[in-house]
């Protein structure tokens, strides 16, 4: 019995993380009907920002040598949390601006610029890798030139096409962005595992024979605060109201004078910042190794959580995340080798039994 309750507690802690990520999926799905596959990788970037902040950017003190510096570390950890959220929000906005918006509104000159340079980058890196260190400046210049050459080529291509409204194209684009972030991460950060050192003092509390970890409680508390904040933003502020309007009917929202592009950017920023916070907290408080594929499994599981609660439904994502975490830790305690299959089996079952999710509304498809 006690072991069961203990498992449930761990499940809720994991579930809180899944819920934070799932909120991003569900908000984006709500406004765009798009499965933002790259969301799990935003979570990974959050963890990497946390890693670099904790080891290089910020003056964290080693607690084993300076036990009196705990307060300083707490403040710095909060700063890191905000930094992760900020950088992830910017990343989310960038992804939306250059990958998803061209799909909606058509490929503009600015997009041609951006992708021209993205294509030129590996060419430059290739040229750089082929030469001695002396000439690398020349090749950097060549890369910029290639970027400029690519731009009109892409712009020419762009003029010939219309925006495609297909949801499948959006999904493939999202998968592509996710792969870009993962493999770009492998090339930039390296595939070797990285660990965030213990930055906060760790304690364990015993209550009724149950063990509570301080790190788990911190994760739960911060997740609860962030979710409350999100609820406030969505329900009681103007951008939140606009978000709800868009998810209700995007065309009507446009007619009412809502700048839908800006609100969609805002939605991506919100979702990505939650994922960034989750990434940092997991990396910092659970001693897990940070690798570029860090976000793959949690991302998929959080997506399952979002579908479980009802895609597009914000309370549903929280509920789905918690259920997902609890179910996973229950299964993992009995059959650890099936841990990763649980999410997919759960997903298959939900989609077959109740595709709209637990809290979602069933809508019939009209001809």
């Amino acid at each position, binding site marked *: 019995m006690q072991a069961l309750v203990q498992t449930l507690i761990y499940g809720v802690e994991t579930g809180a993380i899944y819920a934070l990520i799932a909120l991003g999926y569900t908000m984006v799905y709500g406004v765009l009907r798009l*499965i933002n596959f790259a969301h799990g990788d935003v979570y990974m970037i959050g963890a990497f920002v946390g890693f670099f902040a904790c080891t290089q950017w910020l003056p964290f003190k080693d607690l084993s040598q300076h036990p009196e510096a705990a307060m300083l570390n707490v403040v710095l950890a909060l700063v890191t949390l905000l930094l992760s959220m900020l950088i992830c929000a910017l990343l989310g906005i960038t992804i939306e601006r250059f*990958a998803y918006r*061209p*799909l909606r509104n058509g*490929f503009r000159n600015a*997009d041609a610029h951006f*992708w021209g340079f*993205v*294509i030129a980058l*590996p060419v430059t*890196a*290739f040229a750089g*890798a*082929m030469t001695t260190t002396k000439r690398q400046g020349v090749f950097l210049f060549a890369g910029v030139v290639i970027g400029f050459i690519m731009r009109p080529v*892409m712009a020419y*291509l*762009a003029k010939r*096409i219309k925006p*495609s409204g*297909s*949801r*499948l*194209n*959006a*999904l*493939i*684009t999202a*998968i*592509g*962005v*996710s*792969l*870009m972030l*993962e*493999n*770009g991460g*492998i*090339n930039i950060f390296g595939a070797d595992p990285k660990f965030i050192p213990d930055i906060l003092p760790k304690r364990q509390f015993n209550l009724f024979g149950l063990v509570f970890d301080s790190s788990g409680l911190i994760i739960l508390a911060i997740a609860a605060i962030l979710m409350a904040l999100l609820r406030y933003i969505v329900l009681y502020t103007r951008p939140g109201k606009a978000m709800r309007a868009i998810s209700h009917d995007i065309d009507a929202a446009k007619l009412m004078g809502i700048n839908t592009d800006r609100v969609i950017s805002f939605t991506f920023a919100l979702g990505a910042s939650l994922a960034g916070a989750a990434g940092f907290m997991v990396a910092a408080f659970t001693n897990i190794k940070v690798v570029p594929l860090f976000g*793959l499994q949690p991302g998929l599981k959080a*997506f399952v959580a979002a*579908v479980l609660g009802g895609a597009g439904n914000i309370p549903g994502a929280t509920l789905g995340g918690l259920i997902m975490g609890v179910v996973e830790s229950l299964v993992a305690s009995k059959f650890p*080798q*099936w841990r*990763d*299959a649980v*999410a*997919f*089996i759960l*997903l*298959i079952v939900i*989609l*077959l039994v109740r*595709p709209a999710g637990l809290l979602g509304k069933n809508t019939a498809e009209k*001809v």
Partner: protein
Amino acid sequence: MRWLLGRIGVVVLTCAILLVANRLIIDNIKEYYVSVLVLCGLYATLAVSLNLINGITGQFSIGHAGFYAVGAYVGGAWTMLIRPLVVKSLPILQTGTQIGDHLNLFIALVLGTVCAGLTGLLVGLPSLRLRGDYLAIVTLGFGEVIRIVILNMDVVGGPRGFTPITELVNNHGIPLVWIFGLLVVVVAFSRNLLKSAQGLKFLAVREDEIAADAMGVNTTRVKVTAFVIGSAFAGAAGVLYAHCQTGITPDSFDMNTSIIITTMVVLGGTGSISGSLLAGIALTALPELLRNDFIKEYRMVIFSTLLVVFMLTRPQGIFGHREIALPRFLRRLGRKGEPNP
């Protein structure tokens, strides 16, 4: 009668070309390039078979590696586990002789194809009720579940991988004929399907499911059929893969593999058989032939960037729904000099 003779002629000619090409290739080409050829053939087969589901029937599936894995493991299980038991009563299955090797591979191929097809039926029946992005996610999920199930099967080695299936690798040359034979069969099958009345149903489901339903097409049946055929061909490719490799692990069939196959179909043009074929060959061969560490290292980044850029600028892929056919190409060349009608 003339039709039948023509068909038989094509088959005989293809076999002859394959055998002659095989002799030439084995005698003259370095082993490394043979392995590149093997991979090209396999990936082209996978891409064309996935194109049957994604392009021709329009049901977006991204879990193709799962069926590839089923084929590979079933084929491997035949050669490594079951054949040694059967060989005592059927000495013809002894490996090492020409006929024994071919017969073994054939039995493995049949078993792998059937099992992968059955798995496709099992996966397809429930999940094809969904459509669009949800279908994609569920197939991805099934692909992963298949991988995890194999990971937990101790009979086939689990995470350690299957012990080397080397008996046929040594006589390389044998797999090559089979691989390209399979490729020809898949391409011919897809092409003939598109030309037949049955194929029109598949296209109708892709173009407008509701309209097809209203015209009396049993859409569920068509979708499941496409799924089963596509998975069966993937399974056949898996069997051959298992017999060309020195060992297979569940990691060879992970999500990345599925996504690479999907990329080939999408870049080649969803619905274009020749597009998938060429994309499958090009995307396998280019990174291998431009063999330096840089391309190897950045291969996936380049793939994914290409995928995104293509989706934004040319979402229908390089060839779109069009095919490259030799006769039409020749006709167009011939027409060059004439004035336009």
